């Protein structure tokens, strides 16, 4: 979860400027920490541990059942592949959007800045309904994607728009254009400058955003409920499988799929981190 930690600190390296003094805990703050930790454990840590414990209660059997169940397997595949696709789209579009927001100036840009945050603030079920109104059965455009795999992709693309944009934007803002000028004056073409000077600087931010975007995409539920139709083996995603298992009273298999999802998120965080390091080294 290295990326997650970094983003708590606002995307900057955690130990750049160590404040003059950090106090060790005295009685008052120690008590405060204790109270907050009890609440955090009761709310987050113990419940998440319960998911993993429930899934693992009878050994690997439950996981095997989950992974050999065709419907679950299809749901997991759809979730992972759509999320990879959407994340790739966000890497490209998010970087371009951030670029235009920082480097270009045109009337209405502030409005554009606002629009990007709408998916963050909009309730997920409403996001689904909103997309359904334009791309659903009564589409004024004649584009009907509801109950297809395209709908899954559309919904995931909608809810993940802000991630890459919002991580790349601040880095681009702080970037000095002098270096680019220097590269240009040394005869680098615009494309070369972009590839050799700008892109390497942006890579960590792009991948931090991509990681968040992927994690969000594999766990999405609300926006898909109305839009995708949840057709078994076709448009049903992993979260929906978990929900149906809960509804059916099969907590253990729900926990198994949930644990697999948590694992996928963890693996993704590690993979993105590795790719980013490789790219940074080459740049």
């Amino acid at each position, binding site marked *: 979860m290295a990326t997650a930690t970094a983003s708590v600190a606002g995307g900057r390296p955690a130990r750049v400027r160590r404040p003059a003094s950090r106090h060790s805990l005295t009685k008052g703050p120690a008590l405060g920490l204790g109270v*907050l930790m009890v609440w955090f454990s009761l709310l987050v840590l113990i419940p998440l541990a319960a998911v993993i414990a429930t899934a693992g209660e009878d050994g690997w059997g439950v996981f095997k059942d989950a992974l050999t169940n065709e419907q679950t397997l299809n749901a997991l595949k759809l979730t992972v592949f759509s999320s990879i696709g959407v994340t790739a789209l966000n890497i490209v579009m998010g970087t371009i959007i951030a670029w235009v927001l920082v480097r270009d100036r045109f009337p209405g840009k502030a409005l554009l800045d606002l629009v990007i945050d709408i998916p963050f603030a909009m309730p997920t079920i409403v996001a689904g309904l909103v997309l359904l109104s334009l791309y659903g059965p009564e589409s004024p455009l004649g584009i009907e994607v509801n109950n297809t795999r395209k709908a899954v992709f559309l919904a995931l693309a909608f809810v993940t728009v802000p991630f890459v944009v919002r991580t790349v934007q601040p880095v681009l803002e702080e970037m000095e254009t002098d270096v680019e000028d220097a590269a240009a004056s040394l005869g680098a073409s615009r494309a070369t400058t972009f590839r050799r000077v700008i892109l390497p600087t942006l890579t960590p931010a792009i991948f931090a955003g991509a990681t968040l975007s992927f994690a969000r995409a594999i766990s999405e539920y609300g926006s898909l409920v109305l839009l995708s139709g949840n057709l078994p083996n076709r448009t049903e995603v992993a979260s929906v499988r978990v929900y149906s298992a809960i509804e059916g009273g099969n907590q253990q298999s729900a926990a198994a799929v949930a644990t697999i999802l948590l694992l996928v998120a963890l693996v993704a965080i590690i993979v993105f981190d590795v790719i980013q390091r490789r790219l940074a080294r080459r740049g």
Partner: protein
Amino acid sequence: MASTQSNVVGAGSPALKWLLRIVVVGYLFMLIAWPSLYVVRRAFEGGVSAFLDVLSDPGVTHALQLSVKIAVVATLINLLFGVGMSLLLVRYEFPGKRALSALIDLPLAVSPIVVGLALILVYNGRYGWFGPTLEDNGIQIVFSFPGMVMATTFVALPLIIREVVPVLEDMGDEQEQAANSLGANGWQTFWRVTLPGIKWAIVYGVVLTFARSLGEFGAVKVVAGNVSGETTTAPVLVQQKYQNFEQQTAYAVAFILVAFAVVSLIIVALLRPKDHKPARATATAAIQEKI
């Protein structure tokens, strides 16, 4: 103005500039802006009176009130937790701090459905780890208000901390130390020195938390179960109404939620420049100079 001296990407080639503009505006318009605006049209299809009729439906008012109540309580809890935790993480040193700061972001990577599942596995009155004991003592969490508040608090947990921590780090603690050396006690230092410094970060975090809480769907749905209309929140009502072919009602409630989301964003946009404008303005100015 149009000096060709600078080769800064994006400052040159008008063709590329226009291409990027059109791609970005087109993408965001088709994906976000148009659909969001279209909901307004659907909500008011039957005229304003039909819209108002929907809002006077007791089921709808109950769901909206319930959502607001849950969001208020969840936001207050996260406000206390968030500010306290941020201060501890930034100003104090203790074992396991890095791990804790990673764990705090965990709710962002967990599916809302898994959040709901996690809570019922622990707090369900029949089979949960703590549920039966709590129920014996007259405390019901799952299928009632406390559980819905917990689910909402869970999903919105990191938002305030993510806003406050960077501001606290930037601020440093020189002023706090000065206050201390002048004889201020812990509370005085917090109220007079620390709090004014992180005020806007807190406000921003609170608006985000409230907006997120009001719209939480998956986690609340799992924890609330199918217990009649008593535990139906506004987002859950949107789903029910749409699936019961009461689309007018679904769109009307959705419109209220969208309107609220957009208003929160505008509030935040108006508040935020106070902290960030200088940096952004100088960056833009620098680029302009070059053009």
